[in-house]
């Protein structure tokens, strides 16, 4: 699996910017602490991708990534935004939150490491698997975080597979 961006790196431009290569672009807000709502955005993103005729395993990867991202935002942040951009060759998902941030990303990426509360664990999450799942279901994964300000994840899923290139 090739690592590093295979497309020209474009800076994150926020919800309202326009790129002519996009087949689809939108951002969806996620409220911190609203456990009842977790899964709403991933459900929408899954529907959008399916309706666009994107192949099933790409839809599944995108759905898992956005669902785990939503759970993270709901569990730890004050507010967040998940954006979806579909280009001819890949799907880009970004999850940006305003929250406490992660002081040690290497530790946070370790399987089993978690700061989850009982509430999160009751929902069947918080076992230190979320970021790993997000990374494993992405072709390209970037994470950055500022303590006291928030965390940003960027994931890319290739639509064209290696054998199609």
């Amino acid at each position: 699996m090739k690592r590093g961006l295979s497309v020209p790196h474009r800076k994150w431009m926020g919800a309202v910017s326009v790129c002519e290569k996009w087949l689809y672009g939108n951002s969806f807000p996620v409220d911190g602490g609203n456990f009842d709502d977790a899964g709403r955005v991933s459900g929408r993103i899954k529907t959008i991708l399916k309706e666009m005729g994107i192949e099933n395993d790409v839809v599944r990867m995108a759905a898992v990534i956005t669902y785990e991202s939503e759970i993270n935002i709901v569990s730890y942040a004050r507010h967040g935004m998940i954006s979806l951009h579909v280009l001819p060759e890949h799907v880009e998902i970004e999850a940006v939150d305003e929250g406490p941030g992660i002081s040690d990303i290497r530790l946070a990426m370790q399987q089993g490491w978690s700061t989850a509360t009982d509430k999160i664990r009751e929902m069947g999450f918080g076992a230190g698997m979320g970021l790993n799942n997000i990374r494993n279901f992405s072709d390209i994964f970037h994470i950055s975080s500022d303590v006291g300000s928030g965390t940003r994840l960027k994931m890319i899923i290739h639509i064209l597979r290696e054998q199609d290139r």
Partner: protein
Amino acid sequence: MLLREVQKILDAEVLVGAEKLDMEVHTAFGADLMSDVLAFADSGCLLLTGLTNPQVIRTADVLDIAAIILVRGKKPPPETLRAAADKNIPVLSTKYILFESAGRLYEKGIVGSAQKVDGRRVRL
């Protein structure tokens, strides 16, 4: 195997989706940790779990899981049943424990959605 046969084997009560018992199922995954379900369950499989909150339904919906079997006699709260009805996902409840449920289904031909886990399992 039909979901109807699964219900019989597990002596299960149908809580949601009585009209979908003629659906075919071939694979299953069992866990209480939804992150593991997201990582290893397949679309179209049965989900055996002891977790009963609405996140189980959302997880099943994300993966297009065929039906949910609640083990250890668990009865879900109303909001879980409402979510299942909304998403049209059958929910059955069995008094068998997870191990027994899995064993009884395996014996009759249902196999795991994955046999082993080798770290990165995507792009089947």
